[in-house]
């Protein structure tokens, strides 16, 4: 099969699975997950084939796989949509395919496939467990299967479709299509347990917050389209005249050039999607969704899509330094800001959520300083280890739920890290893989992928003289290592702090296999991008990633020269942070003993409250009171009713003073009286005999006719 055809086909299996499950298989759990996982597998296979073929093509950057068809007629011309796999796309496709496939597989176990139906489970709420009686007559409470199992796979399928569409599309519009489909799916999946008000609100928050960004992004797309007449990446970026014109055309906004403004608008979309400050608020709440969802959406794919979009549009952004500064600022700020919050969170998934925001800020900051390849590199490594961490945390929660069901004490939150401790013995596979993931996140030197990608960003920042960015990111990295170690310590090390933690269990193979696979990538993927001038290790493995992804750009980015400062910094912050985290938290038993539970951090710098006060409440007020009650019901309908009233008054006046008085009494009754009088006197003429009437009329006819004839004709 031609590669282009294959690329077209990549997104299709999941969406087919979606429709098949929704329409036909929604009653059959096994069939549903077979369809879902099978579709993910097919897409994975196709992606791998495409990836391998992409590797074997020389100068893929100049001659990418590309095909397009007419889609929208626009005046005299057609708007085309198509697929494109260039080096960046291929690299993205690689990690997307892997993570998606793994998450599909993981979901089977996570939703307790094969377990009995719950006693009181109902759709829309997490399963509560089922009571079974074993051979000895003992009653056990064991996890029960998710009631909306099929639906979950359907949504995941649709989501995968969106992500694949985004990756393979050759233009901003279809990218946006995939982007929004993922937005919908994230809404549906965060609100998967819609019966919980918190999940329902989180879903809406996620959708609306990202939609703020999307609206700006749509404007950016429209702007770009209006200016260039196309949305195809290649047609825009390979057209040097056009790029030059874009870079020099001034706009009235902030003194930015057209390219800068477009880039900024598109970037705001990313801010929403990748949960950057100030639109970061949705992502922690989104942890209400099932854990595979968190892994899928909030670590590996959807939030990465935001960064991917910025990487895609990098040539445009880089035309305007002002925009780049904004991007760098937001990225760096977010990285630090989110890291500070993560330190004070007790929910195992929320820590990861803030860490995700922070890491995404890293990538954005990298882009802002022009470190194109480094950003892409960190994007990919982060996707692997963060998906691993999320899945691992899901595994932990799952294990804890076992304990909760065992003890029957449902007041214990299985996600609170202070309820855990010592899980490394109960859940060894989970522990080791989580450890790998955590070290990768912290940037544990040399062995983990995270180290290489993070180091490259720091090196870039340092080498290009962005010292402020460099320092901010370094501090953020330190905090990252610190809270990562805090998490590992609280969760796995030490002794179990609760009864539930003692009865935690290792999870089934469908959950652990993805963990193992992802942990492999979390380690090895770093090796494809080792800088060539790195001491000792440089050059052992060629810096393939830099060459490959860098070739996407027309101007090949130079690898930065080696400098010991960033290397030492990253070594220092990673190891220092890890060590400090372990030291501080190895003996902490309860939240009260945690010195870092500062209210301002605990409450996320009060952003939710501020937004509620600044935007949500006023919006409600504008909608309900200002627009509806005052404007529509009050002013507009008031005017209408006033006019109606005036009309009524005029009508009544006409009736009372003209109709009744003048017309009825004077003219009407007067005439009637006259007629009555005449009729009374002329009455005897009416004999009631028809023939006499006729006789009379003929007499008149003849007389009048004769007279007329005489005067008109004869005379």
């Amino acid at each position, binding site marked *: 099969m031609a590669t282009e055809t294959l690329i077209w086909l990549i997104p299709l299996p999941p969406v087919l699975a979606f429709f098949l499950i929704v329409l036909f298989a929604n009653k059959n759990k096994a069939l549903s997950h077979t369809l879902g996982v099978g579709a993910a597998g097919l897409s994975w296979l196709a992606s791998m084939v495409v990836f391998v073929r992409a590797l074997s093509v020389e100068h893929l950057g100049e001659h990418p796989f590309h095909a397009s068809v007419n*889609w929208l007629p626009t005046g005299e011309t057609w708007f085309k949509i198509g697929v494109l796999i260039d080096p960046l796309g291929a690299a993205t496709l690689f990690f997307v395919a892997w993570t998606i496939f793994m998450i599909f597989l993981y979901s089977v176990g996570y939703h307790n496939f094969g377990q009995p139906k719950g006693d009181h489970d109902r759709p829309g709420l997490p399963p509560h467990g089922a009571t079974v009686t074993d051979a000895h007559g003992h009653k056990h409470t064991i996890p029960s299967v998710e009631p909306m199992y099929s639906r979950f796979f359907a949504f995941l399928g649709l989501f995968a479709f969106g992500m694949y569409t985004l990756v393979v599309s050759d233009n901003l519009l279809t990218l946006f299509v995939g982007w929004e489909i993922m937005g919908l799916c994230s809404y549906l999946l965060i609100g998967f347990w*819609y019966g919980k008000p918190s999940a*329902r609100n989180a879903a809406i928050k996620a959708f609306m917050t990202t939609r703020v960004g999307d*609206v700006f992004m749509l*404007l950016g797309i429209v702007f770009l389209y*209006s200016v260039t007449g196309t949305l195809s990446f290649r047609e825009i970026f390979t057209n040097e005249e056009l790029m030059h014109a874009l870079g020099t055309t001034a706009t009235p906004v902030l003194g930015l050039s057209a390219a800068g403004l477009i880039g900024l608008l598109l970037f705001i979309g990313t801010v929403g999607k990748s949960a950057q400050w100030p639109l970061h608020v949705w992502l922690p709440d989104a942890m209400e969704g099932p854990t595979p969802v968190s892994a899928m959406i909030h670590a590996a794919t959807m939030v990465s899509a935001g960064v991917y979009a910025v990487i895609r549009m990098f040539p445009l952004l880089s035309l305007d330094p002002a925009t780049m500064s904004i991007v760098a600022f937001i990225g760096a700020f977010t990285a630090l800001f989110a890291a500070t919050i993560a330190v004070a969170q007790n929910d195992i998934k929320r820590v990861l959520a803030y860490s995700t925001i922070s890491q995404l800020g890293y990538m954005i900051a990298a882009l802002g300083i022009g470190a194109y390849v480094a950003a892409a590199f960190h994007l990919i490594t982060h996707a692997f280890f963060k998906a691993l961490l999320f899945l691992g945390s899901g595994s932990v929660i799952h294990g804890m739920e076992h304990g909760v069901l065992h003890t029957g004490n449902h007041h214990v939150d299985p996600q609170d890290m202070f309820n855990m401790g010592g899980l490394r013995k109960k859940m060894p596979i989970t522990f080791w893989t989580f450890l790998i993931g955590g070290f990768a996140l912290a940037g544990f030197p040399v062995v983990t992928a995270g180290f290489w990608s993070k180091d490259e960003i720091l090196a870039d920042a340092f080498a290009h003289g962005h010292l402020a960015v460099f320092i901010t990111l370094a501090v953020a990295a330190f905090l990252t290592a610190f809270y990562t170690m805090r998490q590992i310590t609280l969760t796995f090390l030490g002794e179990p702090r609760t009864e539930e933690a003692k009865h935690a269990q290792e999870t089934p193979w469908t959950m652990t296999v993805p963990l193992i696979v992802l942990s492999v990538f979390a380690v090895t993927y770093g090796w494809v991008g080792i800088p060539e001038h790195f001491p000792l290790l440089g050059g052992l493995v060629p810096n393939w990633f830099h060459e490959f992804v860098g070739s996407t750009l027309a101007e090949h980015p130079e690898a930065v020269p080696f400098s010991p400062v960033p290397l030492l910094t990253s070594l220092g912050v990673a190891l220092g942070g890890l060590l400090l985290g372990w030291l501080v938290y190895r003996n902490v038993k309860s939240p009260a003993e945690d010195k870092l539970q500062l209210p301002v951090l605990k409450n996320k710098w009060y952003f939710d409250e501020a937004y509620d006060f600044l935007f949500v409440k006023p919006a409600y007020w504008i909608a309900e009171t200002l627009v509806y009650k005052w404007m529509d019901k009050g002013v507009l309908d008031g005017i209408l009713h006033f006019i109606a009233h005036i009309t009524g008054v005029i009508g009544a006046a006409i009736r009372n003073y003209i109709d009744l008085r003048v017309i009825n009494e004077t003219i009407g009754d007067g005439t009637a009286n006259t007629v009555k009088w005449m009729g009374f006197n002329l009455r005897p003429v009416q004999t009631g005999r028809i023939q006499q009437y006729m006789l009379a009329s003929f007499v008149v006819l003849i007389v009048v006719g004769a007279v007329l004839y005489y005067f008109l004709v004869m005379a």
Partner: protein
Amino acid sequence: MDFLNTNLLSLILFSPVAAALIIFFLPKDELKLIRWTALISSLVPFVLSLVLWFRFDPNKTGFQFEEQYIWYKAIGSSLHLGVDGLSLTMVLLTTLLTPLAILASFTISEKVKAYMMLFLFLETGMLGVFLALDLLIFFVFWEIGLVPMYFLINQWGSANRNYASLKFMIYTMGGSLGLLLATQMLGVAFGTYDLTRLFDLWPSAQALTNIPPWLTISTIKTIAFWAFVIAFAVKVPLWPFHTWLPDAHTEAPTAGSMILAGVLLKLGAYGFLRLVLPLYPEQAKYFAGALAFLATAAIVFGAFGSYGQTDFKRLVAYSSVNHMGFVVLGIAAAAAASGTTDAHIALNGAILQMFNHGLSAAGMFFLVGVIYERTHTRNLNDFGGLFPLVPVYGGILIFTSMASLGLPGLNGFVSEFLVVRGAWPILTTYTAISMLGLLFTGAYILKGIKQVLHGPLNEHWAHGEHKLTEINTREIIVMAPLMALILVIGVWPAWILDVINRAVVALF
């Protein structure tokens, strides 16, 4: 089949009336017979318009299937019918929605005969507007459509129906007074009402013989322009003429709302496209900013209004204001820069938005009706967590809501994108402000879903006599064509957009 070719339009136009006459002769107690007769006979114009669709040659410019019959020779008016790509899509929409609306109203059980007859008359009224190529005929059908709708709201509506129907009737009639006067003026000035001739004569007219000396020709044209605009703006409805719409929609019976939102609102937009732009290019260009302002106001305030509702149906009703605002925004853009590619794109979007809104709004109203029939309440606060009870209904509701929200991959996105794309370079500021409306579109749609489907289950509906029943097969059949079209247009809009595009390029 020469006969079919030469008389296709009048067959489409008058077959509903014929069907209504047939129903007139049916016994009034045979509800089933009446319903099925109405349904099947309303499929006749649909099939004919499919024939029309496939026989239509998009490559030709100008009107096709033209028919001209003597109607009122003395004043130069004739029954002149014809279609181009613009009206073709609207005809298709009308004939598609009518059978669905009739099927949707199978639950009506009082005065069924009158109801069905009115519905079929309504269809003729609407089709007449889309098919007319004569100003007077246009006006006649324009007004004919009002009467059945008035009775549909007034007789089969819910609690506040008298107020709503009166408001609807008076408002629309009041709006069209100016239209009538302006129509008369055009007719008197040129001795013909034939649009094809007026398009040539009127915009280029430099002097009129019968105007008072203290009025200049441009003043006359400006007044006539606003007379047209106000008539259509009321119907669209454009802010601030929109307040009849939430009342009328809310009180109308389900199928009435479907048609009202699905087709009747399009009459206004169609009027802009068919009459205002071709007849008053200069004035339209001059006042495009004002139009765009009103459109933007409709978009933003419509979205806010919708967000502020606790009545589900009213929420959907306000969403129509919001969506139709985009249509007018596209039209305003085209008015400001007629002939450019941007204008063509904006108009493509506007016309497609008309079609799409017809599908999604009709679907939304129907879904509201489905749940209203079961619960007898529209108050959003009375629902909650119904998803587990009605999973299929919930899925359909989410699907349709997403189409209304403008989710890419469904139809609404394509048209909104095109409108925004076309309007951006022409009316940048307004387009940017209208994005606020787009944002709140999401907010109110999600609010609706949140209050109805999500959240803790309201136990009131779970058991006993109030137990909510799942959407039934008939209702799914109503939704199926709408959903299929929503998806198809979202994924592959070219089949319909191509027809629209060719018409737009030829016309504007």
